[in-house]
Structure formats: C-alpha cells, structure tokens
C-alpha cells in the first residue's frame, strides 16, 4: 500500500512538472503582455510614460525574456515558495491565491457534502422504484438540473432572496462583518450569504450524480450476488443498502477526484453573478490582464488539487472495494 502511494506521488510530481510547462506555455500564448495592458491603462488615465520608464518596467517584469527563461524564473521562484508578485496588484501571488482558494475550497466542500447527501438517497430511490411516477419526476428534475445553467439559478435565487427574505446577498459577508474576526454572528451571516452559492453549485452536480447513482445501482441490482443476498432471507432494505449501494458507490467515489476541482472552478460563472471572492473570477481576471505568473500558478495549483483529489479518491476506493487493494 505504502509502495503504491509512493509510486503515485512520484507520478504526480512528474505530471505536475509537465503540467506547469504546458500550462505556462498556454498562458503566455496571447500576443502582447501584461505591460501593454498596464501601459494602456496608464495612458488612458492621462499619464505619459517615458521610454525609460517602459524599459525599466520591461526589465523588472522580464517581459522580453525568451519563454524558457521566463518559465525557469517562475519555477525556480515557486520552488522556494515565492510565487512571485502579481503584476496587477503588487501583492504576493501566494497570499492572494490562498485567500481565495480557501473560500473556494470551503464552498466546494459544502456543496460536495450537499451533493452526496441528496444524490445517494434519491438515486437509490429512483433505481428501486424504476418506471414509477416519482422516478419519472426525479428523472425530469435531473435533466432540468443538467440543462439549467448555474448562473441563472443563482440569479433566480438572488431575486428570491432579496424580494422575500429581504436579505443582503452577494459576497460572503455583510459589510459590517467584513474586517471582524470570526464569531458566531459572523458565521451565521456567512451562511446567510453562501447558501445560494452552495445550493446552486450542488444543484447541477446533484443532478448528474443522481443519474450516475441510479444507473450504477440498476447495474448492481442485476448482479448475481444481490439475488444471493435476497436468497439468504435478508430484508430488501438490507439488500439494497448493505449489498447493492456499497458496490454502486464505486464510480461515485472515483468521481470525487474530478468533482472537487470541477466544483472549485465550476463556480466561475456563479461567482461572477454572486460576486463571490473565489478563485474562478480571479483566474479569469488574471487571464484577461495577461498576468501570467498569477494565472500560471493558479492553473498548476488547481491541477495539483485535481491530482491530489484523484489520489484520495483512489485510496478511498481501495477502502470501499477490496478488489482494488491488490494493486
């Protein structure tokens, strides 16, 4: 087992190196540079930028370095834990990302929990009551969940919340709590703010996962060992929950690895609508502003998260399914 984990970790590092290289390459693809964007901004403000100033800035940001040199500088600094300074804000990239990433992570974990809590029982019900009216209703809701874009749901809930709950929404905290340390009141305020985001994020994922759960369970219910379990005289509920669900949950566990990063980034649109301080909009801004160090770091961090998520999912899978343990 330890051997397996070690091998996976080594594989992960190799992949991360490859990812950082390709990712950085893609990110610096757009013509022009952050400096062009910045100069344009300065000029539009009426400022005049002299040639020497431009030279100095170019030198400082290494704008004219060849790709490999830029990449090496970035990697070398990152490996020291110094993720560089964002062009945009002059803030440390690491600091900015962590702040946002923690909000994203928290939000996504909430949504994930929500998703699992809903989709497993509903998927089970739907599969065991196939071709009944509730099954059709669930199926229809699932499809609508897949088809309705998250941002629209966010908008609708936003309207709903402002109209009927008279709630101040958007962001994760009301202005009065903004700079206060965490307290019960602040937490409640936060819950009041993020429930829309959690519901919206969970809704789409739940729709998909319920569908998967239903299909898997239907597969498993056709298995011989389910008949064996019934033939023992077990109650149908025990047959389903002890013998079937445990086997059907398999692909759900596997999807865990991909679902978490997907949720983290999937909120980009939702976060845009709800003005949440998460990683998605930040990544988008970085791309738009051609802030390649920031964007590159986020991309690699998300990839790392995906790899770690996959590893955790595999370990969890090994725990759930003894057949996987041999590898």
């Amino acid at each position, binding site marked *: 087992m330890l051997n397996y984990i070690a091998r996976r970790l080594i594989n992960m590092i190799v992949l991360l190196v490859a990812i950082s290289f390709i990712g950085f390459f893609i990110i610096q693809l757009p013509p022009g540079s952050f400096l062009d964007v910045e100069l344009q901004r300065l000029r539009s403000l009426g400022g005049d930028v002299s040639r020497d100033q431009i030279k100095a800035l170019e030198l400082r940001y290494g704008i004219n370095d060849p790709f490999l040199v830029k990449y090496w500088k970035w990697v070398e600094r990152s490996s020291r834990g110094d993720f560089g300074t964002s062009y945009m804000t002059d803030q440390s990239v690491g600091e900015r990302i962590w702040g946002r990433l923690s909000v994203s992570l928290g939000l996504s974990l909430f949504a994930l929990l929500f998703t699992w809590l809903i989709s497993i029982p509903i998927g089970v019900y739907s599969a065991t009551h196939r071709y009944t009216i509730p099954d059709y209703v669930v199926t229809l809701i699932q499809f609508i969940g897949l088809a309705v874009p998250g941002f629209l749901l966010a908008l609708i809930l936003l309207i709903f919340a402002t109209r009927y709950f008279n709630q101040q929404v958007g962001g994760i905290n009301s202005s009065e709590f903004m700079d206060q340390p965490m307290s019960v009141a602040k937490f409640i305020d936060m819950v009041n703010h993020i429930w829309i985001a959690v519901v919206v994020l969970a809704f789409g994922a739940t729709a998909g996962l319920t569908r998967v759960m239903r299909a898997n369970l239907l597969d498993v219910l056709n298995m011989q060992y389910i*008949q064996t*379990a*019934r*033939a*023992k*005289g077990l*109650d149908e509920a025990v047959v389903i929950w002890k013998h079937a669900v*445990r086997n059907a949950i398999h692909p759900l566990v596997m999807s865990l690895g991909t679902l978490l990063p997907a949720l983290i980034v999937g909120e980009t649109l939702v976060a845009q609508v709800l003005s949440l301080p998460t990683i998605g909009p930040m990544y988008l801004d970085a791309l738009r502003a051609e802030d390649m160090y920031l964007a590159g770091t986020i991309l690699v961090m998300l990839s790392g998260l995906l790899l770690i998520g996959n590893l955790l999912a595999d370990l969890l899978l090994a725990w759930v399914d*003894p*057949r996987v343990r041999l590898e």
Partner: protein
Amino acid sequence: MTSQPTTPTTTATDDVVRVEDLQVNFYTQLGVVRALNGVSFNIPRGKVLGIVGESGCGKSITGMSIMQLVASVGKTEGGKILFNESAGGNPINILDYERNSPEMRKIRGNNISMIFQEPMSSLNPCYTISDQIEEAIRLHQTEDKVESRKRAIEVLTKVGMPNPDRIADSFPHELSGGMRQRAMIAMALSCTPTLLIADEPTTALDVTTEANILDLMRELQSEIGTSIMFITHNMGVVAQMCDEVAVMYLGRVVERATVDDIFYEPRHPYTIALLQSIPRLGRTKGILASIEGSVPDPYSRVTGCPFHPRCPVAIKGVCDTILPEETIVDAAKGHTVRCHLYS
C-alpha cells in the same frame, strides 16, 4: 449410482415442494413473455429432482419462483407452490406471502436456499466469505457473533475447504471459481435447509472441478438429508446427480420420470432428441444428432403442442392445434408425459 429404487410419488404428503399449474408472465418493453405456462411437478423429500431443458425453457424461473425471487417484471399469474417443512406437516402455499414479507424471508435461506450458476459473481465482492456466511446464520439461527463465526468455520470445513480459518477471512476475488462455489454451497447449507435449489451450479466450472462439486453435493445431500432441486441442461450431470427428472420445454414440464426411465425409456420426442444430442465416447462415426430449428421467439406463442414445429413425428391437424394434456404412462413409477402420441 442413482439406481436406488425410487418410491412412486403418489403419496403427496411426502413432497417437500409441490408446484401446481404455475404461470409466470414477464411484462417487458417489447411485449409479454410467457415464461411459465402451467408448470406442475413435485420434489419428493430427501430426493434430488433434476430439471432439464434448453436455455429459455423456464427452468431457472421455476427455481426463482419457489424462492419468490423472480424480477419484478415477472408476475405470477396463477398456480400454487406448496411447501411442506416436515413430513406429515401442513403444506403452506408460498405464493400466499408477499415477496418481501417477514414470513417469506424466514423461509428463504433458512428452509429453502439457493445456489447460482455464476460462482464468479454470486458472492458480494465487498465482504469476506465469513461475513457473508455469518450474515445468514445470524439472521436465522443465532445472534451471537462468536457462535455464528464458529458455525461458519464448521460449514466451510464441511464443504471441504482447506484451511477454513484463512478462507473465511478472504474476499471472493481471492478464491478460484471452484472454491467460490464451495463457499456458496457452505452459505446455502449453513442453516441446514429442507430444500436446496441449485441453478446450474457447475456450468461455469471446468470438468474436474465440476466432478468434485457434484460429489460434494451428493455427499452432503445424503448426510444432511436435504432435498435438492437441481437445474441443469447437462444430461450427463443429471445421470450423476438426480433421482428423478422433469424435462421442461417452453414453460411446461413435458416429461417427468425417474432418472432410469428418462435415460432408458424416454417417451417424449423432445426428451429423445435431447438424449440423442449427447456426444458419446467411442462413437466416432456418423453425425451427432441435433434438434431441428431453435426455440421460438419468446414473445410469440405457438398453438397446439409447443414442440410441434420442431417435432419429427408431429401429427398434422392434431399437434399443431391441440395442447396435449399430461398423460400417465407408468403410474407405479410416476412417469408422465405431455404428448399426443401417448394420449
């Protein structure tokens, strides 16, 4: 080996199970499949009854019906399944119970248990062998964990598992097909059932393993006295295992006799054809006989005798219009046949 004189089955009280005119239909998306069209037979106490027939003739469905484990699209639309726990007792109609009722669940695994065809998939991959055996024991026999574990090891030893302690803590995927089937048998016998339904238990195994498993079942049967309903399509296995045989075709029992009569005095053209299609050692010349045509589409319905489109001796105007009734050809040995040739 199976030629012990079989008592005629006229004394109905001696039957563990008596199936009367059982009808099961499957309502599928493509139409109705008449899986069982009035199946009647009996399983004498302490005996092994073989149910023989081609794929799709309804032999597995019959076994599942006794356990009430037919998939929910299959509806039992008539007939009775009378189960008699002990000689001289009052038979109960299993079909009176709901599928998932406590009464039915008490019968399953405790009084009647079942072994399936695929040893590879009939054990849950997520639990150890002893987990799965103990589950049945705790359900029906004792709640005690130590005791149930002890009994699980006992029954594993009984089915000839080498190293039962270690096997008990193995997962199914760590065992070979033959071992898994032994484990299944152990599970099925863990509560010493009155009736064991074995649905092609050796079909998926290689010949050597098959012989071992059959020997084991025969041995355990005489030791525990469990009656067995042995479902198979293999006439060789029938000869080795069974005391009596019911031949099924398209959801009906077409011939019912002792194992000797089936082999030496078969009456129904279908039984004869089945026997002729068995390859024999030493007979190298000539073409192996096969049955003309194939089993009709399950959605269609054949009028008259269901076998007449493939029957070499079908009587025009009779066999294709009138369904033959069950006819007694030898009352003393309980030999019956459904064929116009004998009515």
